[in-house]
Every structure is written in C-alpha cells, then in structure tokens.
C-alpha cells in the first residue's frame, strides 16, 4: 500500500500527490488545533501571575518560573496539602473503580458472547442503554439513594456510580473481543476435562488480555475525569477529587491563571501517560473486537 512504484498506473502522478498533499496540510492544521491550546497551557503555567496578565501577551515567558508547580506540590503549605490530597483521592477512586469494573465486566461480557440464556438480548440492550442517559438525570435520585446507603461523603458513592457508567462500553468492547476468540479452544479444553469456568478463566481470559487492558484504561480515564457526581456527592474538602477540587479552589482565586494551568497540567499527566503507554491495546481491542465485522 505504501509503495506506489511497483505498480505502474496510467494515472498521472500529479493527482496522487495532490491527495497526499491535502492529507499533509490537513494533518498540520489538526496538529496546530490540537497542540497549540496545550502548549499555551504549559507556557502559561510557567509564568508569574503578573506576566500572564499582559496585553499583548508574552508569547514566550521572559522569566519562566516553576512557582505554580512548587506551590501545588509542596506538602508544607495549605494549597499543596489540599492539592496533593485531591490527587491522592482521585488516584484511589479511579484505581478501585478500574479493578471492580474489570472484575464485573469480564464475566458479563463473556456470558453475553457465549451463553444463550433467556433474556440475554434484553439484558445486553439494557446494559447498552445505560450509556444513553446523562449523569444529571440520575443525580437527585442517586443522591437520595446514597444518603439511604450511608455513602454520602464517602468515596464508595463515587466508585459505585463510576462503575455503572464505565460498564456498558466495557462490556460491549470485551464482548466484541470474545466473539472473535474461536470457541473451539474452549471446546478442546472441555474435552480435556476442564469445567466451563476453568475454560473461561484459564483459556479465554489470558487471550483477552488486550481487551481487559483496554477496558481498564477506559474505566480509569473515565473515573479520573468525572466531575458531576463528585461535585454532588462530596462536600467535605478532604474528600474531593481533582476536577472538583480544582474547580472549588480556583473559583475563589479567579485571577491565578498560571496556578490553574499548572493544576490542569498536573491533572492531565497521569491519564495521558497511561493512555500513551497502553494505547496500542486500546486500538487493538477496538480493531479486533468492536469494529470487526
């Protein structure tokens, strides 16, 4: 596909080059659209508050400073204490959510892919339908439910809720993956004396690791970035997760844009690193599962 030289076509080269150049120019535009806002976030975060508030702006910081980062990450002062606590809370909630999501989604996706029990289609559709509904609709009833369960102002309320909004796509993704694992593998294992559950756990699960990793990334990112439920269920300062914590903090300090940009940057780093490290699994899971016909 990449070599155009081996097959000589009657088409003039000029036209092929035209498409290629269109693609290149398009990619450059998209790169600018994507990267410039992020670059501006980083450039602003290393300015002083005074340097950020100039017109015309300093395109390149004349006196770069890490002061905003030091302030946010220093456990000695109160800002740093709060920020690090938010960070830790986010990490904890996202981590637990991810593990539970995998534990719940894997068997469910497997069952939807392999078994044929009454109500299977209905249940699968209901799971998918969950994704249709916006968080806001569930806020009031869930708040009352959490109050009833005694989970308000605990991270448990967030974990339980995040689990459900990550599950539908996770199950759908994994089911596509299982659909493409040949059933003969399990049949062979069954003939050799494995129980159905052993075949699932020892034969199929290892093969679906890319799908499981993709599911895990998806759940983690979703939980890390969630805002609405966290803003509603948590009121105590020491419980807040990063998105809410940052919002509460900077709505009181509306002019500290370098600090806000530094906080946004730090908040983005874990998920971006995680995704970039594991993105091949994500794309592979999509290719081999969901998208394949």
């Amino acid at each position: 596909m990449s070599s155009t030289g081996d097959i000589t076509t009657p088409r003039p080269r000029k036209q092929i080059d035209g498409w290629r150049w269109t693609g290149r120019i398009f990619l450059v535009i998209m790169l600018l659209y994507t990267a410039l806002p992020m670059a501006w976030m980083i450039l602003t975060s290393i300015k002083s508050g005074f340097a950020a508030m100039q017109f015309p702006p300093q395109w390149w910081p004349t006196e770069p400073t890490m002061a905003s980062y030091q302030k946010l990450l220093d456990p000695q002062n109160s800002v740093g204490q709060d920020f690090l606590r938010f960070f830790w809370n986010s990490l904890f909630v996202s981590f637990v959510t991810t593990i539970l999501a995998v534990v719940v989604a894997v068997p469910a996706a497997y069952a939807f892919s392999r078994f044929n029990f009454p109500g299977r289609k209905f249940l699968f559709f209901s799971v998918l339908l969950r994704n249709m509904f916006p968080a806001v609709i569930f806020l009031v009833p869930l708040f009352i439910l959490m109050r009833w369960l005694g989970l308000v102002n605990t991270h448990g309320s967030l974990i339980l809720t995040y689990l459900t909004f990550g599950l539908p796509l996770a199950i759908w993704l994994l089911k596509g993956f299982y659909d493409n694992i040949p059933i003969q593998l399990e049949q062979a294992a069954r003939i050799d004396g494995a129980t159905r559950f052993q075949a699932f756990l020892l034969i199929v699960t290892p093969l679906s690791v890319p799908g499981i990793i993709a599911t895990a990334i998806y759940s983690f990112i979703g939980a890390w970035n969630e805002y609405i439920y966290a803003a509603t269920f948590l009121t105590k300062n020491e419980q807040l997760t990063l998105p809410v914590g940052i919002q509460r903090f900077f709505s009181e300090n509306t002019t500290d844009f370098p600090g806000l940009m530094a906080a946004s940057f730090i908040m983005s780093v874990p998920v971006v690193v995680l995704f970039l490290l594991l993105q091949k699994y994500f794309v592979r899971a999509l290719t081999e599962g969901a998208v394949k016909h």
Partner: protein
Amino acid sequence: MTIATGHAAALQRADIKRPNVFQQMWASRADYLYVLPAIVVMLVVIAYPIYYTVELSFFKTPPGLQLRDKVFVGTENYSTILSSDVFWKVTVNTFIWTIASTLIAFVLGFGAALALHRDFVGRAILRAILIIPWVISAVAASYIWKWIYHSDFGVLGAVMVQLGLADRQPNFIDNVHTVLPSLIVVNIWREFPFAMIMLMAGLQTVPDQLLRAAKVDGASAWQRFWHVTFPHLRGVSTVTILLLAVANFNSFIIPWITTGGGPSNASHIWITHIYELAFGRQRWGVAAAYSVLLFAILMVLGYFYVKALSGNDKQEHGA
C-alpha cells in the same frame, strides 16, 4: 465458525420442541451468575433513579427536597416547561450543539484517520499528540479554553488583534452570538480524536487486496476510497456518529465550567439547564419532568444506538 454453529443451532431449535421459558431459565441458571454482578449494579443505580424521576415529575417539592412535603400537581410541571420561552431556546441550542459537534468532529476525525493511515516518519508521535485532548479531563479542557478565550488576556483575541483581524480584543464567551460556536470548538477539540481512533481501527479492517486490485484495474484514489474503503467503514461510522451524538446530547462539563449557560441562556443546553433548575433553583419537580422529556427523546435515539451497537451481535450457542 459463527455461521456453522448458528446454523446447526437453528436446525436443532426447529426440530426439538422448545422447553418453556422457566425450564430454559432453570437450565441456564449458571449462566446468570456471570452477568449477575453487572445486572445488580445496573438495577440499583439505574432502575431506581428512573422510577424515582418519573414519580417526582408529577410533584412539587419544597426547596430543601423534604420528600414528605411533596404535593401532587399532576402534569403542571410539564405544562410549565412547554410554555416557557427558555425551554425552546435551550432546545434549539441543544440541537445546534449536538448536530454541529457530532458532524464536524466526525469529519475531522475521519480525515485525520485517513491521513494517518499511510505510514510516514513521525506518524506514531503525531497520532499520539492528536489523541491527547480526548484523554485529558473535560474540566482541564474547559479551563484551558476559558483562558484562551479570556476577554482581556486571551491569547486567541490577541493573535487576532496582531494579525489585524480585529481592532480590539474580541469577546468570545461573553457574547450571546459567539458563545455557542466558541464552545462547540472546544467540544470538537476534545471529541474528534475519538472518531479518529474508531475510524483508524475501522480502516485496518479494509482488505488490502481489494484496494490493490482496484488500483490494478485503474481506479483513482477517490474511486478506491468511495467504492472500497467507504463501504467497509459504514458500520463503524454509524456506531461512531451515534456514540458522539449521545455524548454530545448529554454533555455538561464544557458549557457548565466555561460559561455556566450564560450569557442570558445563550449557551445553555438541556443538561445544563436541568442541572440549574434542580441544583440552582431547587425546582426539583420541574427538573424531573424535564428529565422525563429527555428520556423520551433519548429512547428514540437509543433505538438506533442499540441497533447499531448490537449489529455484530450474532446469536451464538456457547459451550
């Protein structure tokens, strides 16, 4: 394998008299154990809220949400909504927001996926950079763009002034005419990478032999795209567009954090408006009725969504 087992199963089903549904359920009782955890979580967090929202939409509650004191008002909440001007304005906004965001994000993502399909130096890095906006939190994205759009120190306005496109710092998000398009730009920034990933995955399933054969037969690049590549991407395109449409219809964070729906409701969409009615003005019953209307629309969308998502769901018989 799918076709073979499916066929055999169909034959079997035709030959043997089907046991009744309870016998089937009993026979496959072990199967339910696998889906049970997922179903329990779903029931608690979904079925109950839906029931509750429908009930609440017929009541008037005091601001503190003391449920004991709610008063049955029939369909009054619904008529309040449908007769208010704000509702229609917000509805128009919602449709502009959803349709524009979805289509533009899809087209940009499709273009990027096609342009990235061919191997070249730096492709992996470029792809990684393009994906980042989708990964970072919408709260961070909202703050980044709020700062870029800032009415005094925003870099976008400054660039426009420097280039002579504006004679003074334009006001992007405090202006009723520009606020919605400005927010759509933010939303697309965050969402086109999703379309890109989906379509990149889809492109890998297009058989190379077909493209090469078309090339040997003298098909132009456009013809190869239109007659070979595109038909293969129809399924994934439908799914992507629906997922984007649902996500956009339900989006909240970007308008809420950036503008809070203002100025004068110009950037309110349904979800932010419901949130404001409930948590801002404590009109729980009206917000619930609003949510029920939203359900109705989503169910229509949901029909297509489920159909597209379960497209590759073939009835198979397992072990």
